[in-house]
């Protein structure tokens, strides 16, 4: 990459353009969070993408789906198409591996990623993604928001970095059996979860910032773990206190040797 397009981000480092263009980045879920992520990645200069979403644009998405228009809702445009349009509009030479399906149906492309950003809407989905990223030595960044309660409603969210060798989302107390069980019990409950654009934007921007730091190390912090809690009512993003307790501890949920296909022990 040459020229003045990236001159304003030269502070990322002398070799940042090459590092960004070399990195293969995955985005799973191209809805409210993922559409923001893809937009920013394309602006910054990522060239190699692996993206998944099997959904189409609907009227109810238009309050938050970046890049979507009323025409897309009428035309039932695949969200994948919007993402590709966004990427190629800014990076015409990008390599984009795009699948209009759940990643579990075609997992091989995901394995090529150096960083995967999960913008999925279930704890189960997050668990499976993180497991796969651990098996294939991929940095996993998870984002999500929720709204609960009334009088007033409370907006919360998270940005989590789970890296090979570091604490996982279970270590961080984010993924718990209780949460997974509760979600399992609610399976099939009707109704979409509350979602609005500005918290998605905050979370997505933070996730992209983390991805850039993983690629360029411009903060010089060499971070391999992060758990940022978003308080949408106070407009803050703060490190979770739980992470402090994990300093120096090995993750008991994923061993260093549990990469690639599972090691089957014949009984």
């Amino acid at each position, binding site marked *: 990459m040459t020229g003045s397009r990236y001159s304003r981000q030269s502070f990322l480092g002398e070799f940042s353009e090459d590092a960004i263009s070399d990195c293969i980045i995955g985005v799973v879920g191209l809805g409210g969070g993922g559409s923001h992520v893809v937009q920013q990645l394309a602006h910054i200069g990522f060239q190699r993408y692996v993206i998944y979403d099997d959904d189409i644009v609907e009227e109810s998405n238009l309050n938050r789906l970046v890049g979507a228009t009323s025409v897309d809702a009428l035309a039932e445009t695949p969200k994948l198409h919007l993402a590709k349009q966004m990427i190629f509009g800014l990076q015409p030479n990008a390599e984009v591996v795009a699948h209009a399906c*759940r990643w*579990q*149906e075609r*997992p091989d492309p995901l394995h090529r990623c150096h960083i995967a950003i999960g913008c999925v809407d279930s704890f*189960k989905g997050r*668990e*499976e993604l*993180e*497991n*796969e990223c651990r*098996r294939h030595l991929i940095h996993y960044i998870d984002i999500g928001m929720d709204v609960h309660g009334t009088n007033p409603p409370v907006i919360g969210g998270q940005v989590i970095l789970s890296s090979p060798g570091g604490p*996982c989302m*279970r270590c961080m107390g984010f993924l718990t*059996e209780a949460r*997974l*069980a*509760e*979600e*399992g*019990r609610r*399976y*099939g409950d009707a109704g979409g979860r509350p979602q609005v654009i500005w918290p998605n934007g905050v979370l997505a921007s933070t996730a992209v910032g983390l991805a850039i730091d993983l690629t360029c190390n411009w903060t010089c912090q060499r971070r391999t773990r992060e758990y940022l809690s978003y308080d949408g009512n106070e407009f803050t993003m703060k490190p979770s206190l739980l992470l402090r307790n994990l300093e120096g501890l090995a993750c*008991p*949920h*994923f*061993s260093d040797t*549990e990469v*690639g*296909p*599972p*090691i*089957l*022990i*014949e*009984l």
Partner: protein
Amino acid sequence: MTYPKDQTDALRPYCKKLSSFEEGGITFLLLERLKLPDGCTPAECDALLCPVAKDSYDSRLYFETKVVCQYNRNWNAADVRIGQRNWFAFSWRVVLPGTTLQGLLIAHLNGFAKAA
């Protein structure tokens, strides 16, 4: 985690090959070519037994494919990714605290043979 040998030995007659593997802190039991009850299509397939609590079930038996049987089952887990393979499971709650692995397996397979 290792399971008692006598319990894993009791599973062997049900399948062609029995193995275990770890993922996310859980030890799964892989039963290759598990024989399914009469009337099932296919008659046998690979299955994955999770003997511990997961996803709101006290235990769960996953199959490599949706199995057709005389009862219309709710396959509420599809393309669940475990151990680098995709699995399917139907809604069937087995609550047998303290039972053996064989007891769990039979109870889960009863989902094909019993109405409810």
